[in-house]
């Protein structure tokens, strides 16, 4: 081969290589650019929307005043309750069935006896009224809430915090934690606002279809605005978690921090894969030892157990009007329905106890006061409808596909219904400031372990506020 031929060849090769290199680089850069553009197009907020839930047509103007509200009762109400308690027709439980077939009838008689003869509703109402209650009309509904301000102290920063309950709970779940939050924690004290979800307790129930967690979130944002708060913290569990998450997705600038006890990841392939690998190589997928202890055996804990415990969810998400009818007329039936959850969801092992372990973590008085809130307001049916409104439209829910970018604090209680490790939570909550493995507690931590929960909220807020 002659030299110039060689040179020509090598030049040609060189050009070809250069061309190839340029092409590849162009594609790579183009790809990276496209990915970056596409990624940043991922929604960081959800639309706020609008709604009106009252009866008939929306009027031209709405009263936006905040009215004080006092819970009242009467002799008639108590007499009616007692008469119904006396009319109960019990069915003997199967021998040796404990709480495995649902609320044990033998133990139920004990609860009812306390309710009928010892429980003092008038005294409980006075206890409920120890904090100031209010109502205000938003989107056609009377929204109930309590507002508790810490006593004025020197060198104290008052931080607004909204607590949102779930089902079958109520604002009453927070009565033990409120005094802990309004204390002075090294210069920080909380001003606590606890609303009732519309359709629950003293908040009016929607008359129109479609009232889901996004609607509730918008209403609560309006409430905070009406109360004069431009920035605040949120805490929630159960439905409260879904609602406060939506609030953070709607107006992230207003939500300084989001603290949750129950949270769900965005399910994806990575999560399923980590489930399989995590059992044997947890460190590889970011599981801690505690995560492994809580998740596995997966099928047993998360599939079979969930199937056993979600019958109520299935019927409420499909036929709430049917499911709610009888429980709204039988206080004993209502109590069995609600208190079964306070048993199983505090600790699944309680299903094997004849008394469901109910009085181990709660007093009958506290449990019955929560039941009475549902009973006296006839709100069980409307509370159940929330399930249908939220699950009915699963495919089109934009908020499920959207992440949460406000500072988030997650408190993982060991007996919560499902355990979600930090790596899974991160698929949805992109800005996790704290993830705490709590030593004890189940699904109703504010009720069961108020000190632990309060401490975690305080440490989270201090972290976010750099206090």
């Amino acid at each position, binding site marked *: 081969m002659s030299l110039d031929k060689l040179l020509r060849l090598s030049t040609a090769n060189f050009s070809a290589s250069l061309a190839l290199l340029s092409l590849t680089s162009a594609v790579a850069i183009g790809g990276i650019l496209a990915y970056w553009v596409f990624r940043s197009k991922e929604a960081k907020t959800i639309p706020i929307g609008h709604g009106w839930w009252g009866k008939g047509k929306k009027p031209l103007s709405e009263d936006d005043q905040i009215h004080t509200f006092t819970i009242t009762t009467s002799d008639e109400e108590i007499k009616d309750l007692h008469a119904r308690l006396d009319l109960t*027709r019990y069915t003997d439980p199967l021998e040796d069935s404990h709480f495995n077939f649902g609320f044990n009838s033998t133990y139920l008689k004990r609860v009812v006896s306390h309710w009928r003869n010892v429980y003092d509703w008038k005294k409980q109402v006075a206890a409920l009224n120890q904090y100031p209650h209010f109502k205000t009309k938003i989107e056609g509904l009377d929204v109930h809430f309590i507002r508790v301000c810490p006593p004025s102290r020197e060198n104290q920063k008052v931080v607004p915090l909204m607590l949102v309950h779930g089902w079958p709970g109520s604002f009453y779940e927070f009565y033990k934690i409120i005094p802990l939050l309004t204390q002075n924690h090294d210069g920080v004290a909380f001003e606590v606002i606890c609303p009732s979800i519309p359709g629950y307790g003293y908040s009016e129930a929607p008359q129109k279809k479609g009232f889901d967690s996004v609607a509730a979130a918008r209403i609560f944002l309006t409430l905070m605005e009406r109360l004069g708060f431009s920035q605040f913290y949120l805490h929630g569990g159960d439905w409260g978690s879904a609602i406060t998450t939506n609030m953070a997705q709607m107006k992230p600038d207003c939500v300084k921090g989001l603290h949750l006890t129950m949270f769900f990841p965005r399910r994806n392939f990575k999560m399923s894969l980590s489930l399989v690998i995590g059992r044997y190589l947890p460190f590889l997928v970011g599981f801690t030892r505690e995560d492994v202890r809580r998740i596995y055996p997966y099928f047993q804990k998360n599939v079979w157990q969930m199937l056993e415990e979600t019958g109520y969810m299935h019927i409420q998400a499909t036929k709430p009007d049917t499911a709610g009818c009888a429980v709204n007329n039988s206080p004993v039936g209502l109590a069995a329905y609600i208190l079964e959850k306070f048993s199983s969801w505090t600790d699944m092992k309680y299903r094997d106890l004849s008394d469901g372990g109910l009085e181990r973590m709660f007093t009958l008085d506290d449990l019955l006061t929560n039941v009475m809130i549902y009973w006296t307001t006839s709100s069980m049916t409307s509370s159940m409808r929330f399930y249908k409104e939220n699950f009915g439209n699963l495919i089109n829910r934009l908020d499920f596909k959207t992440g949460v970018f406000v500072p988030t604090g997650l408190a993982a209680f060991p007996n919560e219904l499902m355990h979600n490790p930090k790596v899974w939570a991160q698929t949805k909550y992109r800005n996790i400031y704290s993830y705490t493995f709590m030593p004890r507690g189940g699904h109703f931590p504010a009720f069961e372990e108020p000190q632990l929960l309060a401490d975690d909220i305080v440490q989270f807020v201090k972290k976010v506020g750099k206090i």
Partner: protein
Amino acid sequence: MYLTLFLTYIFVLVALALGGLLLFIFQRNRKQVLKTEDGWWGPGAPPDAQEDVSIHPFQIKTSAEELQDLYRRIDQTRPVLSLEDSQFNYGFNSQYLQEVVSYWRNDFDWKRQVEKLNQYQHFKTNIEGIDIHFLHVKPKRVPKETEVVPIIMVHGWPGSFYEFYGLIPLLCDPSERDNLVFEVICPSIPGYGFSEAPHKKGFDSVCAARIFHKLMKRLGFQQFYAHGGDWGWLVTTNMAQLEPKIVKGLHVNFAPPSKPGLSMVLSLLLGNRFPKLFGFNGVDIQRLYPCMEKQVVEPIKETGYMHIQATKPDTVGRALNDSPVGLAAYILEKFSTWTCNDFRNLEDGGLTRKFSLDDLLTNVMIYWTSGCITSSMRFYKENFAKGLYQPHSKMPVYVPTGFACFPKELMHTPKLWVKQKYHQLKSYTTMARGGHFAAMEEPQLMAEDIRTFTKMIEEK
């Protein structure tokens, strides 16, 4: 020598192969029979004394107190308005429920209905520690050359023996078309209506089947036919599996496949493209597809009750046993939706299109006056708790079977799927009308099909 070795080798292989083949054929032909053991369902331990096998006549009774208690509870109902424009899509519509309750309170005559219930002979007998209630209806008139055929008919949930009251006269009276009259036995499943509820855990459909066999034996029947829908389908199927020689023929109007086999899955995947391959006709295609909607979404929408009853029956039954209106809403919602699921879009749920309020409320009153709602629900937990792969669900049925396919039944089972379980399917009738409570809704059609099927078997 090598040749000999080689031949021996071949011989052994062939012998093994033949043996294996024979074994395989033998296994297939060996008809499996369901095994069961005796049980005891009364309170405490079974007594040492001999079992009481006497049969006592039984009359349904009511009293002024019973009615007064019912009315008091109805009057203290606290209604909650249904959402605007929701019809029956959120469950039983509250506004229409008030109409039903008003009829119940002011027009429904329970005393008269009790007389109607007592028009047939009722009995009770103690089997395995619990009192079993049943109707025994003998034909009044047996013309010459007419055969009397005994048949046991088993109800389901939330039905009762009362579902068959329209069907019984059509079977017990002679017909022009054939020379058959039936002698009908209608028991109540233990835990339902006037049959005592089991006191121990574990009472499933096989236990009910075994108890009903003992009942028929006690009544002196060596062979009989069986008919059932809903749970009755499963109980009578188990009866056929327990004693295939005694159950002469099995007639069912509900046959959901117990285990999704390969052929079922394949037929679902390819059936609408190659219907002929799976024997699918137009009706099959229309009722099975679109798959996602009809096989997944619809069942999820309608099985909430099943889920909660199969897991927490004592909880959900609690309020229902105190609130008659709540009980009526819970039960009648099924009589609406399971008759035609389009009724969910009607303000009145289409309840009175196929049934009278008197009949519907009589069925509800059976649950109310006997206080059996909780024990009726436990049957779900007992049947599902052991999982889907029970011996009886894996075992085929070898008894001659007739299947009546009603268009609005909850789940459509094409012939291919029915045959997977019922190896001797003698008739598969596509009915013109009717839903899940077919015996009550279309007694004429049902009677015709039972007669045709029975005649076919008798003539063999």
